[in-house]
């Protein structure tokens, strides 16, 4: 097996004195979609933020492409071609869609921005129609597409997606997930996905991890986890 693109080894992170992550081990291979599922407050988003260096891990190491990035500042980590579509999307509401995408290309060196733009527009054609519109005037689904598009503008080797289905209609969720699958299959883009929507996420992902209270409780391939009765009862059948 080849080297993992991202490996998280024994990472613990704290908010003040409260431990949010208690020794997490996760590996992401090149070309994979890996998903983290879990209940609210399990530490999924914290894990995502810890990869980005905010908060920084107090114990353990985060290795990206063989380089230890645990203690780098956020913007240095992002310059190593990790791109993030953060939770709650965090687009720039008063800048146009085009300007938002341009901001995403801030770390793309010496590239052809037109080609990157064309790639994003072909993935999400609605963004091209809205390109002169303010980010804040888009619908939730369009904003999510914009957040993903903005992350793609930096030509990342690893794309971090934090709850892309948050607050979206099922139809839009399906559209966004199929775009994610497209990116992975066509461009071999490695994707690390944090989701509440366990069913969709596990169907999409090659491998998955289940987080409970800051620990990894289970792991396996997507279909394996979907079959597991604990996963089904806890995350798929409304806790029945």
């Amino acid at each position, binding site marked *: 097996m080849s080297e993992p693109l991202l490996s998280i080894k024994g990472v613990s992170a704290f908010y003040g004195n409260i431990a949010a992550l208690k020794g997490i081990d996760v590996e992401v291979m090149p070309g994979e979609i890996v998903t983290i599922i879990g209940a609210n407050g399990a530490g999924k988003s914290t894990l995502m933020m810890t990869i980005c260096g905010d908060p920084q891990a107090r114990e353990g190491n985060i290795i990206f492409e063989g380089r230890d990035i645990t203690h780098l500042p*956020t*913007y240095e980590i992002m310059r190593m071609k990790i791109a993030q579509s953060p939770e709650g999307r965090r687009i*720039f509401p008063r800048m146009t869609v085009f300007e938002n995408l341009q901001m995403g290309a*801030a*770390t793309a060196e010496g590239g052809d921005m037109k080609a990157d733009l064309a790639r994003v527009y072909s993935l999400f054609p609605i963004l091209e129609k809205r390109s002169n519109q303010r980010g*804040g005037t888009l619908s939730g689904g369009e904003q999510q597409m914009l957040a993903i598009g903005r992350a793609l503008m930096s030509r990342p080797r690893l794309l971090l997606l934090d709850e892309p289905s948050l607050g979206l209609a099922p139809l839009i969720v399906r559209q966004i997930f199929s775009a994610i699958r497209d990116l992975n299959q066509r461009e071999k883009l490695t994707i690390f996905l944090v989701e509440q929507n366990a069913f969709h996420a596990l169907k999409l992902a090659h491998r998955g991890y289940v987080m409970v209270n800051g620990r990894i409780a289970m792991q396996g391939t997507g279909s394996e986890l979907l079959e597991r009765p604990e996963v089904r009862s806890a995350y798929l059948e409304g806790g029945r």
Partner: protein
Amino acid sequence: MSAARSEKSSVLSHALKDALIAAIVAFGLFILLLGFLIDDMRGPGQLIGRPVLLASVVGMVFVGRFLISLLYYNAPALRYWLGAIWAAISAFARQYKWQLLALMFAAAACWAFYSPRDWPLILIIIAAVFIGVRFGFSAALLVVAILFPVTFYNNPYYLGIAIIILTYVMLGWGLNIVVGLAGLLDLGYVAFYAVGAYSYAIIAQTYGWSFWVCLPLAGVFAAFFGILLGFPVLRLRGDYLAIVTLAFGEIVRIVLLNWVSFTNGPNGIGSIPRATFFGIPFNATDEGFAARFGLEFDPTHRTVFLFYVILALALLTNWVTIRLRKLPVGRAWEALREDEIAVRSLGINPTNTKLTAFAIGAMFGGFAGAFFATRQGFISPDSFTFPESALILAIVVLGGMGSQIGVAVAATVMTASFELFREFEQFRLVIFGFAMVGIMVWRPRGLVSTRDPTVFLKERKTISANHVAEGRG
């Protein structure tokens, strides 16, 4: 039919009643404020009634209130009619534009014929109207600014006010970089103005270097102070940042006040070298500007020169800001104002971004300060107090944050009205307060609240005020 008529008449009577009440309230308010004047010149405690002034103010309130209640509260039909009249007028103007232009020229020619001394004024009006119709409001404003000394050459008072206005326009544009673009609320901007003024005064006096050498140095010093302020406040945002910048402004002023051996303390620095025309002084000697250029000596030469210097400096500020907005650093400022976490997660270093905003904003404050020092010839810490910072910030906020033309208009209105209402000096803050409240009620996003995208595909669309968050833009 009759129902509609009765509805209209009830609308009218309602509006009249409304206006009457407003007029009574205004009468009660202003009868003591404006209606009487104690004139000590003609003997102790002479009470002079001013019925005309009172009546005109109350009348203005009455008419204004009447129109407002007609237009906004009661009558969509009346609004429709006004709209139709306006449409008819503009259609007429469009159809007969050449005739109208000819008429205007004829009127101007008559005016010029009967009072030839007014021709510069006529020139400036015609130029402004033409340029305004063809190229828009900002171009007209620029033309008026460029022609201003030509028109008002014989009126040094107006020239002086224009120079003050332009200084505030420049300060507003400088602060706009920090507040409007980068979204960092700075209540101590006057500190950079002070640093620029003092560094110019001290360098020019100590080394005898010319204005054009000292000006960039003053800018550099101010930028350095901008970075000095920037470092401790990097982690702060919003209210906390405002408090620290406020303190910074006071610290600078108090240091200037107390470091007597260096700044001469509260006595200030006098006889600062005056600006020269690139080395040629403006005086009546044979070496002076007038003699060299074969003109008769006139102290206004210096004033006009200073006018163009500050106009050029202000335009430089504007041009740099517009250019920077299109560059990655300017875009990063705007993104930082929107969402700092998102900026960091896009691989942009927020520390450097903030520091450049502080430094560049401060640099223009420093330029304005150096200009202020050379124009006044005397500076003291009294010129750099907190109200000055507040005024500059008010200009930026009222103008619509991030809008260049809005800041220029706001600076003009505020500074000019301070001069106009010099007689009502005690009421200055009252009027200022009313203006603030009025702006916040009717135009909460500033006078010019739209923001043009700096880049666009195919066509430029202005983003309407409704899509701009309150108080931002």
